[in-house]
């Protein structure tokens, strides 16, 4: 099966230059090929391990605690407006009114 590096880049929110794309197209398939050996293992009836901890459902007290101020929370944001984060368009900009 052919892997579309371009599609993966889009899913991963990576805008690649053509040279970046080329480097990845050349290097990714051999890494994936190596890991294919897992596909052939017979693991029917085995449960997945998602975590290696002993505890379950760890809760905290329902107390209000100090968190970051709005200024602290925004101080690393590249683009803010009146105390809000400016985000890129999610949908395409609609130019028909």
């Amino acid at each position, binding site marked *: 099966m052919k892997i579309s590096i371009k599609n*993966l880049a889009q899913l991963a929110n*990576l805008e690649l230059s053509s040279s970046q794309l080329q480097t990845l197209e050349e290097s990714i398939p051999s890494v994936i090929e190596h890991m294919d050996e897992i596909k052939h293992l017979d693991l029917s009836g085995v449960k997945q391990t998602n975590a290696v901890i002993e505890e379950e459902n760890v809760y905290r007290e329902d107390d209000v605690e100090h968190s970051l101020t709005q200024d602290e929370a925004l101080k*690393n944001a590249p683009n803010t407006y009146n105390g809000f984060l400016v985000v890129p368009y999610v949908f395409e900009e609609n130019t028909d009114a």
Partner: protein
Amino acid sequence: MFLRRTQMLNKSISELSKLLKTRQISSVDLVKESYARIESLDPKLHSFITIRDKKDAFNDAENIVIDNTSSPLAGIPFSLKDAYVTENVRTTAGNKVLDAFIPPYNATVYTLLKNAGGILVGKNNQDAWGHGGSTENTSYQTAHNPWDLERITGGSSGGSAASIVSGMVSFAIGEDTGGSIRNPSSICNISGLKVTYGRVSRYGAIAYASSLDSVGPMAKSVEDLAIILEAIAGKDPKDATSSQRPVDQYSLHLQTNLKGKKIGLPKEFFVEGLDPQCKEILLKAAKQFEKEGAEIVEVSIPYLRYGVSIYYLIAMSETSSNLARYDAVRYGDKRELFSPETMRRIMIGTYALSAGYADELYKKAQKARTVLIQEFDQAFEKCDVLLSPVIPGKIRKIGELINDPVQNLLEDLYTVPINLVGLPSLAIPAGFTSDDLPIGMQLIGKKFAEQEILQFGHVYQQMTDWHIREPGM
């Protein structure tokens, strides 16, 4: 040329603490030495990304009150891998995406060390996001090994290892997801501890793979590691995966009798693929333990042969998810600043999680992980600790691994399985090759058996002096 014996920072933590508590030296003396060492050696080593503003470090050193109730860490200069957020001190995780990131809060491990009186002097160079075993995958210049400047420091906590062995700091906190504390510790001839998953809080540690990441100490001896571990282990309400189990007084119980203890050698680790000199050194180490009364047994963990594949399917999937947050909206610069190695991992992780492939790749890897855990449990019915190599061969020259993506991953085969099963592992110096390059070994324990592996390591360091040797730069 190092004149190690005249350098204060080359002393053990307990020696330094005694000198500080009896006022024979001051914390300011140590911080001065630290910065002088950094200024003279780091232009060649690149073990730091950010040096903390000297006036802040000196301020801490001048104001600290050290008395008999103080922690043994009080007044002692240390560094943090740049994966730990430090309030008002730039934190990059080794990549330009966070080049301008100034965290508004502290990682728990830093808060604990600060409360103990430790003095932070800087943030260490690393493979970006933990992606690598050579500290070459960094936006901030490749780190160089003090033992041979043309060779790697190992990684991803390579900067931490180099700064300790070159006497810039007394100790550091590294981070280990697939070997990132053990690999550079071995390669730079220091001691490093990967803890049981959940033993130390991960709050404020920039995440690579959240089911595998561990926070741990790196220092010149097992005794030092035990002291640091006491200060940083424990439940943290801010990290729901941190363990509730009580923290032992590790440094008080390092002496032990090994009579009757069993050391397992996993046979799958001692086959071709392991450099003969390395094998010889490890078997000699096993013999040393036998002299102390321990028994060597062979064990088998068949799924070790799939370790690299299982690990990378899981780690790359988890990192593709964890790195999604770097979208240049709340913080950070554009994603196109990720390195090719990081992009590879994100994209392979995306692939392994995508519709149509998730069942046979990611989910299968998590099932294989279950089998590996069961096999380790079975091996531990026959022994108390496992002895293992750290890297398969000689320390690589700079440029070898970063330019060979598959080989780069295969180099991790002895370390990654331990993260998958969540067990603790201690990496300590075990000898030198015929061309004077360090070789380390792993002592792997059962869950939360940090005390036991530290005991084995301490016994070994009392019988040998590999860990005292220093590079002559």
